[in-house]
């Protein structure tokens, strides 16, 4: 009961802060802007060419589902990691910086329990954010096109594509969204880990973004293609593999295990650091 109350309070503290939920608004605005741009003739012509080259009909596939996937792809890449890093980077270090952590730790609560609560809070935030992005993308795109339509999906490197009927497309969309929520927990955990060290919240955010950015750049360099399995961002792209016509479940499960290990390691390192550090003004 106490644990539930403490977790609820943690979420309340988090969502009451402007910078936590401002990300939700930023995503909605970004999605509307992208939809408006997609309304222009040139992007539609490009989409028509692309879907046509795979045997699809523009009117059937230029609908809510296909556009929602495009919206998620762009907005999440641009803003997802940023907001998760921002809130995750704050979760411990902001409380230490503001001095509220000392107030909490003058109570008979263990640091380990606090770390479990904090990580759960950031995990719930991350999942909520991804679910919001995907729901708003689908709703906005469906309003924009007047319905869900069929799903056309293609990997950025064109290594795989899929054309799905509405029901099958919706199922794959939902499955991909939950996968994206799961892989995002790794990003949140990296931010959480840095936040547990003695550093400013902004430093924890910047370090998280730096790790993800360097990881992404390195995994795309031809010299490191052979080592791509070691890169977090490569394994994180497994969320889109679930939309393949024949999802490579062995690769996907390998990616999820890898990400789970990284997530656990980040939590353990962060928790060990926090549990052993002095808190003093």
């Amino acid at each position: 009961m106490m644990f539930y109350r403490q977790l609820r309070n943690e979420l309340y503290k988090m969502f009451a802060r402007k910078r936590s939920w401002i990300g939700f608004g930023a995503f909605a605005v970004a999605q509307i802007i992208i939809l408006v741009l997609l309304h222009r003739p040139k992007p539609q012509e490009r989409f028509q060419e692309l879907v046509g080259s795979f045997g699809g009909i523009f009117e059937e596939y230029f609908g809510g589902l296909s556009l929602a996937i495009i919206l998620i792809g762009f907005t999440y890449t641009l803003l997802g990691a940023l907001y998760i890093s921002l809130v995750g980077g704050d979760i411990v270090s902001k409380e230490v910086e503001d001095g509220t952590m000392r107030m909490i730790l003058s109570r008979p609560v263990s640091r380990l329990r606090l770390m479990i609560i904090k990580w759960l809070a950031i995990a719930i935030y991350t999942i909520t954010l991804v679910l919001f992005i995907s729901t708003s993308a689908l709703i906005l795109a469906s309003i924009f096109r007047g319905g869900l339509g069929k799903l056309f999906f293609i990997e950025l490197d064109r290594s795989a594509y899929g054309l799905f009927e509405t029901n099958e497309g919706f199922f794959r969309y939902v499955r991909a969204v939950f996968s994206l929520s799961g892989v995002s927990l790794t990003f949140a955990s990296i931010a959480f880990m840095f936040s547990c060290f003695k550093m400013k919240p902004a430093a924890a955010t910047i370090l998280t973004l730096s790790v993800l950015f360097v990881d992404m750049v390195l995994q795309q360099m031809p010299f490191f293609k052979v080592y791509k399995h070691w890169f977090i961002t490569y394994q994180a792209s497994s969320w889109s593999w679930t939309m393949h016509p024949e999802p490579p479940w062995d690769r996907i499960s390998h990616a999820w295990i890898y990400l789970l290990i990284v997530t656990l390691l980040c939590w353990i390192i962060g928790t060990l650091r926090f549990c052993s550090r002095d808190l003093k003004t």
Partner: protein
Amino acid sequence: MIQLTDVTKKFGRQTAVWGMDLFIPQGSIYGLLGHNGAGKSTTLGMILGQVFADHGSITINGSDVYKNRATALSSVGAIFESPCFYDYLSAEANLKILSDYSAPPTQERLAEVIELVGLKGRIRDRTGTYSHGMRQRLALAQALLPGPELLILDEPADGLDPEGIAEMRQLVRRLNQEWNITILFSSHQLSEVEQLATHVAVMREGRLVFDDRWPPQGLDSKWVQFECDSPEQTESASSKLRLTSLVTQILPNGKIELSHDTTTSDITAWLVQNDFPVQSIGALSFALEEFYLEMAERDGKPFQHQEEAAP
């Protein structure tokens, strides 16, 4: 209540607290005094388990604060220098959030504590709108909500105006006397400690140089102040007294610390015999400031009562 045994804490090469032994008895108002950087806040941090001691043990009511944190801190409330809150939330929300880390208070208890600290009309306001004095009161409220037996206050008067200081002092005294709460507070304001404390511990450069009841028993009677016809004669008499075995310490303005067997009458007799025209002589009511400055003159060497110092 609180027992520190041979506690040492280092930050890198800097030793913040050296082999500290301290016992804080139940029911006391214990003033921890020292200059900035003396190690007071580190000591309080260690008592609360927020700073890890490199050596030694700290127990509260017999429970080790590191090994059995939940039990040790179950009866403790604390406030820190410049209290910090979630400024975007109301004071009431802050109190509820912090209380849920120990035991959620009943509505009656919440109302009682809010009334006590005088925040009744402002409890639904965001703490970001609070003045420093109000934040101190709110901090006190959050510390009192779980019904603590021990209250730890780190520089409670810091940043308060004279009215606020007086209010805080009254409140602390009331909590000690009416609510039977043991108080441990740190301060570098001598007058604050002098007016409140039943016990005083003095820290200098990480070392505990004095801890005892305040004023220390027997100390008053060992200090005497005399005055001759002129200040020059007083100083001259003091200088000559220094060479005798009658006194152990000489302070300016005819303040002398008597040696073990000396009485005020012995000093009067000596002054008369040595032709010093003595105007007045009497026991010195010892002020903490002088005591503290004397500690400073001793350069951190542990203070000894006259009885202990005597061979």
